[in-house]
């Protein structure tokens, strides 16, 4: 049972962390290497919010808003000139990640901050005591996934976004401002990133580099998933479970690179990865 919960919670956490990156990559084929720094921003939002005493339930909205604003700035000043140079966009966003991290260091210092988990203790799931916060991540991931799918499929913005993804020229000729769609998607993606940072902090601690460790795994998962959020969920489940298995039965260090290696192998064999089309 413990193993099943490990699978489920690892999948959920991976999905939460990757969804923002996916949003951006899906819409504009740009990889946001500042994602690690954006996760850290979320962590510091959590830190500030618990200090100020705002209930952490509202905190995730603040985190989202903070990320949304940062994302908007990044898109406007750094990413927009680089749409036609996707490899340079990787580099520029990575450089930006360094900048954001240093700004965090200057404000909060280099040290580790601790954030109280809003949910202490354990729950008993079918006879296994398991961290309640990790379990809560499962509905959180489902919520985020649900909201994204509803947003993309059920709203006018979502349809326009999908239109831009499918055929940008056609969308433009129908009066859809693809630049604006990208701007908003990037901002939402960054917002999802900070929200993810907010959610993972109680599991670890807050420090300026907290997001970097997640970056490459998130990147590889997005690469194998193509455009589809369902494929992303699938990739998180499969690779997350393998990571858990390798970590427990072989070696936690090898588990740490399981996702990268398997994703790279998947791409070599099937360049389209998990996506159907």
């Amino acid at each position: 049972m413990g193993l099943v919960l490990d699978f489920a919670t690892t999948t959920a956490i991976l999905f939460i962390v990757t969804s923002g990156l996916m949003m951006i990559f899906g819409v504009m084929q740009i990889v946001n290497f500042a994602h690690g720094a954006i996760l850290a921003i979320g962590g510091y939002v959590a830190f500030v919010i618990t200090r100020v005493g705002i209930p952490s339930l509202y905190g995730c909205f603040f985190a989202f808003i903070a990320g949304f604003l940062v994302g908007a700035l990044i898109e406007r000043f750094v990413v927009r000139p680089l749409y036609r140079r996707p490899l340079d966009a990787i580099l520029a966003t990575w450089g930006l990640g360094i900048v954001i991290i240093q700004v965090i260091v200057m404000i909060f210092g280099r040290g580790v901050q601790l954030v109280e988990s809003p949910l202490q203790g354990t729950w008993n799931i079918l006879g296994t005591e398991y961290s309640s916060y990790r379990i809560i991540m499962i509905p959180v991931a489902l919520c985020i996934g649900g909201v994204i799918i509803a947003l993309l499929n059920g709203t006018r913005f979502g349809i326009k976004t999908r239109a831009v993804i499918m055929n940008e020229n056609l969308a433009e000729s129908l009066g859809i401002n693809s630049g604006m769609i990208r701007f908003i998607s990037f901002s939402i993606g960054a917002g999802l990133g900070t929200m993810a940072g907010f959610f993972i902090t109680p599991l670890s601690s807050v420090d300026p580099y907290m997001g970097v460790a997640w970056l490459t795994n998130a990147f590889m998962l997005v690469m194998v998933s193509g455009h589809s959020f369902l494929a992303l969920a699938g990739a998180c489940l499969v690779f997350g479970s393998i990571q858990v298995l390798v970590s427990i039965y072989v070696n936690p260090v090898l588990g740490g690179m399981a996702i990268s290696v398997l994703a790279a192998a998947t791409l070599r064999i099937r360049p389209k990865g998990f996506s159907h089309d």
Partner: protein
Amino acid sequence: MKATALEVENMTCGYGNAMILRDLSMKIISGESVSVLGKNGMGKSTLLKAIMGFLPKARGSVRLFGFDTTRTRPHNIARHGIAYAAQEQPLFTDLTVRNNLEIALKHPETFDQLFRPITHLFPVFANRLDQPAGTLSGGEQKMLLVARCLMLRPSFIMLDEITEGLQPLVIDNIAEALKWERESHGTTMLIIEQNIQFALKVTDRFQIMSKGALVDSGCCDEDGASEKILRHLSV
């Protein structure tokens, strides 16, 4: 005197530094319907793409309803009331028929009202709104394309080889729809065609394009129009 809908002056443009159109000028009066005819690869589609803002212009200018749109981006040109049906990949095949029709509307809530006339012109869509556009037959897709253009209540419609590969019946249906549109709304049209009969039926005058330039023109109802065109198109 009627207002000018489209005015292209000495436009030179192309892909990269390969110039497809050279020093091209044309003018369409509001309410007019004009066809551009010519053989393959002569730059007809390029002309529409250039007007729509997809190609940078090396020289010259484009004005739509008095606005200079030489450097305007496509989505802003679309907002000047231009409906454009491209030749390649003109529909979102993964979206439903309804989404395809609705997506460009300024006020989606007016969908039902705008859709009513369409059901008369193309009855086939009445109960197939929720079907993905990609599952329609080739002819139905072209009709959907025309329907989308009409639903925008545009002031200017541009169609790129709308009859390509269609059955005569469908072609007639489309021609009827375009005629109805002109009669009821007086919409200006610019139509790229290979099908001479269709072009003569739905437009007032024609222009012949060859190697990136307009080389001849005429009125569609003049005697011998068809022969004049054939002379240019045959070899």
